[in-house]
């Protein structure tokens, strides 16, 4: 009899956990790239540039931490005719309750956030594109993939 009463509760718990909110990544501040005075780097770290700030949250209070990865930095749009070879760099700092991490695309592109403490992670991301032959006039945009898994 007692088991019969627990069955609906058990089903409800399964449903609640399996539909719990997944890790979410939201861009709070879009990044802005600015040209360096030497004309060779277009970066959010340059004077006038703005880092992108992301809010990453995992609302299911499970025993799984989260792994956050920065990857696939690429030029998304350039002025017509721009074909100069470029190199890319990205760096980040992340903070959460009782912890922090920092790294770059070239080294430490991923970091782990412990369970429960991954409720809210603030990620500050910089993008840099370098062209030794400079950048021609026009609009540029880069994209970087941030994954929470």
């Amino acid at each position, binding site marked *: 009899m007692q*088991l019969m009463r*627990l*069955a609906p*509760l*058990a089903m409800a*718990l*399964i449903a*609640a*956990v*399996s539909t*719990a*909110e*997944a*890790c*979410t*990544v*939201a*861009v709070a501040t*879009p*990044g*802005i*790239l*600015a*040209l360096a005075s*030497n*004309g*060779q780097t*277009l970066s*959010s770290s340059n004077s006038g*540039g703005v880092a*992108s700030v*992301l809010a990453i949250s*995992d609302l*299911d209070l*499970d*025993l*799984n931490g*989260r792994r956050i990865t920065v990857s696939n930095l690429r030029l*998304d749009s350039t*002025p017509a005719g721009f074909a100069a070879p470029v190199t890319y760099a990205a760096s980040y700092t992340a903070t959460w309750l009782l912890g922090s991490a920092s790294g770059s695309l070239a080294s430490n592109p991923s970091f782990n956030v412990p369970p429960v403490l991954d409720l809210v992670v603030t990620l500050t*991301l910089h*993008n840099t594109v370098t062209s030794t*032959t*400079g*950048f*021609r*006039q*026009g*609009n*540029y*945009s*880069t*994209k*970087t*993939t*941030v*994954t*929470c*898994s």
Partner: protein
Amino acid sequence: MRVAGVVVLSGLLLPGTAQAVDVTFTGLVVDTCTIALTTPGVMLLSNDGTILGSDQGLGVPATVTVVSIGTNTISLAEPTLLTYPAGYTPGGETLEIAYTGLASHPLFSEMGLSFNVGLLSLSELFVDLKMTNPDGFVQGAYTAKTVLTCS
């Protein structure tokens, strides 16, 4: 209770769903170019007295510094005579310019000249100017100019 305990435990081990987001950065590059005259030129008279130029003897070409970002064009306007001594009648002279340095056009030209520059850190352009008059020049001070623009 045993059933409920098993259910809760299995639920806690369920991994959450991964999410990937593309973060966009945008930037605008505007062409800029700055030029500055660092050394005015000095013209000297040739031995035969018919040429007054910065390329003569100890004459000094004008030095201009240029910084360029993006794609720009540097233009040197047709040279003109600015001042001359009271006893000199202008009109018989020919004015010509040439340049070397970050770009080179060593042959003197009566016409304006121009060339393109891309990304350019602080660089120097040396501009020569000369006046030629088969009738020669009277004693006194002369000044001539060419206007440089970068756009």
